[in-house]
């Protein structure tokens, strides 16, 4: 009975526009990323500020923190940082952001394992 009431309450909530989302590819996983706020790139610091994303708490596969590199990518609360030495690729027509971390093995919460078939979709 309580669940039914909650379901009805949920149905009565006015519809709101869902935020536009895109895809952030990081190593072998993909994460949703919100696009309502533009990304910011501070070129002297080679630092990219990601918009709000489902990606969180990224660690290497062995549980170690991310390795440092030429490009800092800030995300989530804190903010947290991951690093890349290869160019960050941005495609507006998907939209997608493609990041290869320094170690290439980062795994974060909130992600989905990428099918190998689509891993090079930005090429």
């Amino acid at each position, binding site marked *: 009975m309580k669940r039914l009431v909650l379901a009805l309450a949920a149905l009565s909530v006015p519809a709101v526009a869902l935020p*536009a989302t*895109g895809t952030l590819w990081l190593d072998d996983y993909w994460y949703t*990323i919100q*696009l*309502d706020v*533009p*990304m*910011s*790139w*501070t*070129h*002297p*610091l*080679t630092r*990219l500020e990601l*918009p709000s994303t489902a990606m969180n708490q990224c660690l290497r596969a062995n549980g170690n923190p991310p390795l440092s*590199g*030429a*490009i800092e990518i800030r995300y989530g609360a804190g903010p947290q940082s991951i690093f*890349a*030495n*290869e*160019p*960050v*690729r*941005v*495609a*507006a*027509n*998907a*939209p997608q*952001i493609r990041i290869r971390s320094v170690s290439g093995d980062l795994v974060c919460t909130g992600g989905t394992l990428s099918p190998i078939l689509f891993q090079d979709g930005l090429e």
Partner: protein
Amino acid sequence: MSEPFALNRLPYLVVLLAMLGTASAADLVLAGHRIALSATQQNVVMDLLSGNVTVNVQANQGIKGDGWCPPDQVGSKSITAPWVELRLPNLSTHRISLNGAATQLLPNGDVQVTPLSPGGLQGDGWCPPDITWPTSLRAEPAAVVAGQSTLLIWASAGAQSCNPDGSTYPQGVTSVAGWTGVLPTQSAGRAVAPTVPGSYTFRLNCISSTGARFTQSVPVSVTAEDICAGPHQPPAGLTRHTAFVNIFGLRAIGNQEWAANATLDLTMWNPPKPGQVTTGGINRSVIGNFARAGGDTAAVSMPQNGYLAMKIETAGVLPLAAGSLLTEQPGQNAAPSVMSISRCPGDFAPTDSRCLSVWSGAGGIGWTFGSTPANWCPMTVGVDYYLNMMWFQPGLQVNGCTQSECWWLVAQSCGANCLPN
């Protein structure tokens, strides 16, 4: 290195490091061309939804020949999203259309984008023009009467030479004096005087040292010269007389072919006014046909303060046709008169004196379309004229008609190269 040596140079090292810290090494990379990003406004914004990229750059404009700005191509391009927007130190912006699928952020800070076109154009807002216009081309005045002059004014900077190529004129006009050949790079007022009515577009092309052409143009409207203004207007105070009644007395003089009391037209000699027919059913003017074999004698009544102007359309008249008009005073209601053939109705001061029969009791005008004698009034086939007559003596303000109306006795004939009657 000894310690004092290092300490001595420490301030220089600090300054050097500070300079390195503030210098911007990052560029916007456009298909291999580089535009330095601002060292102070360091934020690059990328809108993933639109694909637009906004960057702050160091310079207010590119450099001609830098690989992006061409040395010889001028113009502007239409911009479509996505684009990269360059925000310039002077607070203006310039946009370049992009392929939105190919933006990259490089480890050295560079922002690499893929433009849709391989380069800019001179004067497009980023690439500087070779030539600038401190004074844009203008015409003063922009509308003139044919034959009058207008002043073309301009000043270019950076041009080596200018020319009027591409100027457009009314049909039949191939050039305008003063606007041909090599033109100066600036002029405070170059007079040109178009002689043919119509729309003119004076174009000025100025060529830079690189051969790039920068063009400006200005329209000038030329209206027909009013050849009937001033002394060629009808005399003040006189009224154009357009018809008279063929009363009995006039029939006795020479108008027997017209019905008594018929109203006869005085506005058209050739062709005659439609519907005006003799008692024999022939449509013609009261003074007969113009430039046709034979002739006619007629008597016309006109008020003291009137003038008549009978139009003569000459299209179709035979080349070299010639004839004469003779006037004399009838036995009653007589008055001396002045007569002219002119392109203007009521013009008693024709430009060619051969087309004027001065005020007298008896006079005449010979008319010719190119044949002799040379002292007859020259006419041109296809041009419209008027046969004008009045009692008033021009200049002396004397009216030869002392009654309310006087009669004009005229005889005309075609003597050479006449159309059949």
